[in-house]
C-alpha cells in the first residue's frame, strides 16, 4: 500500500471548501457585470493592486510550483536561476502593455490586433498558434491537477481533475474577468505565504550551510555555474517564456482590462514580484539529497520534500498552494481563450451584428465548452506533464518578432508576418525533432526574426495606426 501524505478525506474537504468559496465569490463579483465589456474585461478599469497581483499570480502556474523544483533537482543552481528569468517576459511586456492600451483603446484580444494590423492570412496563422498553445496549457494544467491531487492524497485522478475543472469553470462562468482577477489576488497571497513558509522551515531546520556542503561533496554538478545542459537550455527557455506572454490573449486581455496608466507599472511590478519565486520553490529541491529524499520522478520533488519535512501540515500547505497555482492559471486561460473565440471568431467572422447580450451569453457557453473539451482531452491521461508544453515552444516563439514589430513598426506587412510565424514554427518543430527540444524556441525565434527583417527591408508600405481603432471606423461607416 502506498502511503499518501494526506488522507483522501482531508484532500476532498479542502477542495470542497475552496471550491464553494471560489464559486460563491465569483458569483458575488459577477453581480456587477452589466455588459460584455464588464464580463470580458472587468470594465477596463482594474486598479494597480489587483493588476500587479493578477500578472504575478497567473504567471505562477503549476509549472512554477512543480517544474522549478524539478529543473533545480536536475540542473542545480542554473535550473532555478534560469527558470526565474521567465520573469523577463512580464517585465518586457510592461512597455508593450502601455502601447497596447493606447493603440487599442476599444480592443478586446490579441487576435483583434493581429487581424487589424496584419490582415486575415496572418490572423489565421496566429489563431492556429494561439489555439494549439492554449489547449496545450489547458490540458497540462487539468492533468497536473489530477495527477497532483492523486499523488498527494490518493484521490482518483479522474475525480481530482474533474473537480478542479468544475470549480474553475464555475467561478469564471459566474464572475467573468472580475472573478478571475479578484481570485488571482487571493491566490497570489496564498501561494507566496505557503512557499515562503516551507522554504523558511527548511532553512531553519536543515540550514543553508549544510545543504551547500552536502551538495559540494555529493552532487557538485548541481552547484556548477557551467553546467552544460543548463547553460544550453537557458535562452531557449527565455524565448519560450517571451513567446508565451507576448502572443497570448491571457496577457493582452489583462493589459486591456487595466486602468489607463496602470498597465506598465502593473506588469513591471508583477514581473519583479515573480522573479524570486522560482528560486524559493527551486531551493526546496536542493535540500532533497541532504534529507535523503530521492523521488520516483523528478517532477514530484517539490511536494515530496515539503511533505517529508513538514509532515501533514506541509502536505496540506503544498496541496493548497498547488491548487491555488493551478486555479489562478486555469481560470485566466479559460477566460482569455473564450474571449478570443467570442470576439475574434464569433463576433468578427460569424455574427458581426450580435448584440451585447448575445456576446455575453456566447462567451459564457464558450467557457463551459472549453471546460468540457479540456475535460475530455484530459480523460485518457496520455502525455507526461511537461511534454505538451515543450512542444509548444516552437509555436509561440515564432510570434515574438511579429508582435513586437507589429506594435511599433509601420513597415512590416501581413504577408511577411504570416510567413515569419509559419516558417518560424515549422523550423522550430523541425529542429525539435532533428536536434532536440532545447533548440526549438531558439530556432523558431531566430527564423521568424530573420523573415521579419527581410520584410521590413523590402517593404515600401507604411501602416496607418488609426486602422487599429475599429470602433471609430464602424461609427464612421
Amino acid at each position, binding site marked *: *500500500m*502506498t*502511503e499518501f501524505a494526506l488522507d483522501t478525506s482531508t484532500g476532498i474537504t479542502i477542495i470542497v471548501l475552496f471550491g464553494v468559496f471560489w464559486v460563491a465569490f465569483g458569483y458575488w463579483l459577477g453581480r456587477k457585470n452589466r455588459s460584455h465589456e464588464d464580463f470580458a474585461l472587468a470594465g477596463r478599469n482594474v486598479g494597480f493592486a489587483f493588476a500587479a497581483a493578477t500578472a504575478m499570480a497567473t504567471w505562477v502556474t503549476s509549472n512554477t510550483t512543480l517544474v522549478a523544483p524539478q529543473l533545480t*533537482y*536536475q*540542473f*542545480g543552481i542554473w535550473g532555478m536561476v534560469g527558470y526565474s528569468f521567465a520573469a523577463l517576459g512580464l517585465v*518586457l511586456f510592461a*512597455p*508593450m502593455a502601455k*502601447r497596447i492600451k493606447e493603440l487599442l483603446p476599444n480592443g478586446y484580444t490579441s487576435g483583434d490586433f493581429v487581424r487589424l494590423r496584419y490582415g486575415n492570412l496572418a490572423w489565421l496563422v496566429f489563431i492556429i498558434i494561439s489555439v494549439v498553445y492554449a489547449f496545450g496549457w489547458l490540458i497540462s494544467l487539468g492533468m497536473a491537477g489530477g495527477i497532483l491531487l492523486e499523488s498527494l492524497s490518493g484521490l482518483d485522478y479522474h475525480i481530482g481533475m474533474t473537480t478542479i475543472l468544475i470549480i474553475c469553470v464555475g467561478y469564471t462562468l459566474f464572475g467573468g474577468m472580475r472573478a478571475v482577477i479578484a481570485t488571482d489576488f487571493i491566490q497570489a497571497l496564498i501561494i507566496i505565504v505557503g512557499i515562503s513558509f516551507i522554504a523558511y522551515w527548511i532553512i531553519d531546520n536543515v540550514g543553508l550551510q549544510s545543504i551547500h556542503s552536502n*551538495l559540494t561533496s*555529493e*552532487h*557538485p*554538478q*548541481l552547484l556548477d555555474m*557551467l*553546467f*552544460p*545542459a543548463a*547553460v*544550453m537550455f*537557458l*535562452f*531557449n527557455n*527565455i*524565448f519560450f517564456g*517571451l513567446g508565451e506572454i507576448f502572443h497570448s490573449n491571457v496577457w493582452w486581455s489583462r493589459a486591456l482590462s487595466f486602468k489607463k496608466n496602470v498597465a506598465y507599472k502593473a506588469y513591471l511590478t508583477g514581473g519583479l514580484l515573480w522573479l524570486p519565486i522560482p528560486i524559493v520553490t527551486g531551493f526546496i529541491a536542493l535540500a532533497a*539529497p541532504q534529507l*535523503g*529524499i*530521492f*523521488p*520516483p*520522478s*523528478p517532477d514530484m*520533488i517539490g511536494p*515530496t520534500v515539503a511533505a517529508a519535512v513538514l509532515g501533514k501540515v506541509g502536505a496540506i500547505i503544498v496541496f493548497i498552494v498547488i491548487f491555488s497555482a493551478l486555479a489562478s492559471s486555469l481560470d485566466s486561460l479559460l477566460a482569455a481563450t473564450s474571449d478570443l473565440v467570442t470576439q475574434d471568431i464569433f463576433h468578427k467572422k460569424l455574427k458581426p451584428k450580435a448584440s451585447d447580450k448575445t456576446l455575453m451569453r456566447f462567451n459564457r457557453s464558450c467557457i463551459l465548452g472549453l471546460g468540457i473539451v479540456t475535460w475530455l482531452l484530459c480523460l485518457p491521461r496520455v502525455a507526461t506533464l511537461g511534454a505538451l508544453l515543450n512542444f509548444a515552444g516552437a509555436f509561440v516563439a515564432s510570434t*515574438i*518578432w511579429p508582435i*513586437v*514589430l507589429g*506594435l*511599433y*513598426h509601420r513597415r512590416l506587412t501581413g504577408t511577411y508576418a504570416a510567413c515569419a510565424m509559419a516558417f518560424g514554427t515549422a523550423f522550430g518543430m523541425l529542429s525539435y525533432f532533428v536536434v532536440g527540444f*532545447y*533548440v526549438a524556441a*531558439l530556432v523558431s*525565434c*531566430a527564423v521568424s*526574426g530573420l523573415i521579419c527583417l527581410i520584410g521590413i527591408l523590402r517593404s515600401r508600405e507604411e501602416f496607418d495606426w488609426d486602422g487599429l481603432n475599429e470602433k471609430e471606423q464602424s461609427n464612421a461607416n
Partner: protein
Amino acid sequence: MTTQKNGFNYCYILFALCLLVMLPTTAHASSLKLSGPNSVVKEGYFTVSVSAPNFDELNRVTIEVASNSEFAKSTRQFPTLGDFQDISLTGFSNGTYYVRARAEGPDNQIYTSNTIEITVEHYPLWQSLTLFFVGLVIFITLVATLLLLHRQWIHSRQERHD
C-alpha cells in the same frame, strides 16, 4: 461433521497457499532486477527502476552507485521513497557509474540485483556556450529593438502633445 470436514479442507488449502506463496518468493527474491537508461546520459540525471516479483515484501530498497564494478570504495547509497519502484538520481559528473539495487527480504536476508553500467557524458562546453551566445545575441537584439522603438514612440507622443 460438516464443520470438521470444512476445517480439514481449510488446512489443506492454507498449506497449499503457503507453498504457493513461499515457493516463488524464495525463487524470485534473488531475481531483483534493476533497469536504467540505455543510452549515454547527457544531462547528469537519470531514473532507474527496481523490479521483483515479490516487491511488496522487500524492505529498505536502496540503490548503490559506485565508480567501479566491484563496489569496493566510495559507494554512494540512495534509499527509494516509500514503495515506489522508480528512483530519480541527479547531479552526476562525467564518468562511468556502476549501479545496483539492494533490498532486505522478509527473512532479513539481503538481496542484490544485477549491476548496470551508466555512462554520463555532459554536452561539450563549446556546444552549450555556442548556443548560449547565439541566444544572448538574439535576446539583446530583441530587447534593444523593443526599448528603442518604445522610446521613439514615447518621444514622438510627447512632441505631438507639445
